[in-house]
């Protein structure tokens, strides 16, 4: 046989059968963000829940304005306001059971407070007297801290551990649109899906990472679409529609709790204030854009729905505002007191037992403090 004849005789075997690991269709997000308020779905929403959400939104907005005011008075080092995003913040807290865990991003003080953490203790990081002022185990809220997206694998690990222990616990992790570009976002979602961990990821897509718009962050059709690549469902929701966010998150939490695995939720919202009090947003966005989102305000959306259906009267609106004012007054009053600081605390918690090296340094500081006390300055 010639070489050509041999070639002609060669019949390649087909490769071993291939099939997709999961059907991608059911994982895909809807084409439009899901809405409840102002749609037929609103009629099915529990009025009591809507009223609770409303009261919390009003309170949350007031918390943001009060905290921002405290930065101007020098009582807070910095505050990243979530004004405009209150629906996400509040719905995240309310979608969880008591035994569940919340993993906030640095912007989510509102969610932390809505979950029950003391409003002053939630601010110690930003005031600067201690990093985490609250006991994470009291309300099952992970520490607020600033490295972006790093809380996501923590949530996955905790949810996984809970499942291993046979506990009926779900973790809800919050992250911003910018944070989705971090490697930890990818690794967390991948681990969550592989382990089928009972965890829900909520991305608050507020349009910006400081100054950088989403278009420079991703080329994905939507952030919710990213879920498909990990083999988990992606859900797209109007982040200013508190009823919709609450419903989507509650569904995802239920799914996680009953062994259905993780979900990625993208809530489309907008950061009305600058990145923080220290930022100048006029350098990267125009008033018209901000105004368009002000007209889609989460509090007004819910208020219109509730009043339109006779579920909220003048008195109830006033009660919500009074409650918010009382919270703000308490916050103001307590934040205007100087925090008590003990410099020796610096050495108290680095390790379970201070190392010999830290004991020496502690003695040095103690001596310095004593010299200060005696008024002695060299």
């Amino acid at each position: 046989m010639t070489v050509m004849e041999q070639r002609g005789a060669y019949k390649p075997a087909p490769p071993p059968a291939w099939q997709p690991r999961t059907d991608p269709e059911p994982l895909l997000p809807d084409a439009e963000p899901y809405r409840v308020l102002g749609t037929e779905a609103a009629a099915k929403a529990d009025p009591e829940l809507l009223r609770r959400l409303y009261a919390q939104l009003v309170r949350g907005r007031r918390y943001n304005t009060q905290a921002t005011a405290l930065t101007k008075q020098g009582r807070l080092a910095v505050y990243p306001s979530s004004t405009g995003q209150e629906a996400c913040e509040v719905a995240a807290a309310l979608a969880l059971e008591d035994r569940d865990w919340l993993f906030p991003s640095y912007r989510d003080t509102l969610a932390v407070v809505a979950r029950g953490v003391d409003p002053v203790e939630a601010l110690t990081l930003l005031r600067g007297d201690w990093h985490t002022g609250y006991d994470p185990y009291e309300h099952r809220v992970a520490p607020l801290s600033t490295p972006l997206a790093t809380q996501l694998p923590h949530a996955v690990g905790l949810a996984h551990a809970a499942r291993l222990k046979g506990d009926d616990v779900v973790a809800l992790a919050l992250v911003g649109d910018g944070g989705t570009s971090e490697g930890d976002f990818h690794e967390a979602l991948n681990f969550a899906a592989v382990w089928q961990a009972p965890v829900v990821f909520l991305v608050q897509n507020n349009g910006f990472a400081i100054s950088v718009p989403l278009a420079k962050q991703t080329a994905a059709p939507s952030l919710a679409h990213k879920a498909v690549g990990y083999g988990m469902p992606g859900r797209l929701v109007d982040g200013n529609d508190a009823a919709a966010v609450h419903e989507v998150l509650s569904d995802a939490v239920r799914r996680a709790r009953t062994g259905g695995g993780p979900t990625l939720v993208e809530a489309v919202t907008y950061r009305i204030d600058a990145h923080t009090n220290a930022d100048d947003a006029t350098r990267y966005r125009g008033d018209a854009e901000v105004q368009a989102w002000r007209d889609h305000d989460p509090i007004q959306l819910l208020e219109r729905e509730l009043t339109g259906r006779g579920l909220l009267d003048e008195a109830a609106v006033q009660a919500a505002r009074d409650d918010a004012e009382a919270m703000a007054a308490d916050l103001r009053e307590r934040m205007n007191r100087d925090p008590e600081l003990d410099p020796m605390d610096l050495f108290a918690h680095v390790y379970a037992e201070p190392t010999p090296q830290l004991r020496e340094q502690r003695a040095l500081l103690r001596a310095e403090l004593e010299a200060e006390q005696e008024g002695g300055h060299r």
Partner: protein
Amino acid sequence: MTTVAVKPATMAQALTRALRDAMAADPSVHVMGEDVGTLGGVFRVTDGLAKEFGEDRCTDTPLAEAGILGTAVGMAMYGLRPVVEMQFDAFAYPAFEQLVSHVARMRNRTRGRMPLPITIRVPYGGGIGGVEHHSDSSEAFYMATPGLHVVTPATVADAYGLLRAAIASDDPVVFLEPKRLYWSKDTWNPDRPTDVEPIGRAAVRRPGRSASLLTYGPSVQVCMEAAEAARAEGWDLEVVDLRSLVPFDDETVCASVRRTGRAVVVHESGSFGGPGGEIAARVTERCFHHLEAPVLRVAGFDLPYPPPMLERHHLPGVDRILDAVARLQWEAEG
């Protein structure tokens, strides 16, 4: 008196035994990492654990070091005691943000409310003919990160005892395993429960009167050989195995240097910004009046870890150690 069977065992076997005993003693101990399950790890240190304890206790994770350590943080938050394996020294770097920003800080951040009892096992060091990224000595990074304990065994018995102590610790421990000692053998009794060593104590491996070799991990054996060879030169060298870099055992180290009056720090890690600078400074600050000569360092060169065919020129060897000892101003004794 009962006689106990003392058989030769490798360091890798002692580490496996430590993991096994820790898992048997405490159901909250979970081993996780790349290839640690079915395969038993690329160095076989986790051999048999998945079979004995199930894959939920010894888990093959996705290939992602930040994810491994990041999820371990969450597991520790929920009361588990994760033992994480980083496959190689240089492949632990993707986990650095989790390590530095969270693992090392969580206890302090939360005023002690949320300790993270995580053990991070890192095979480290050279001398195994590894290609690039398989021979780094990264201990200086870990030492420079407050909140971590940094421990490294040099003997088979310590491999067991220190790993048990690391897993039992309520603080995060970076446990550096000298790769080239994995197959080193020693007589060791695996049935003696008192083997758990306290973290933070150095050990004098060889007493001597002339000078102290301060070393750890893979360099301990080299220093022992150097001390043996030094006898021909008339030097009686003491070898101190630090065992724990953080916390640092100033007491044992300084007692040794006060006895001998001379010290050489020996490690594979580069000297500039390396552990030796810290150790030399500590010794000088504490034992200045006992020193007959400046504290010297014998370290790897300050270069990216060399290709395997050149690594013997890089690693501190017996000759380089003896040359340093020769420079300890003996003439002054005259």
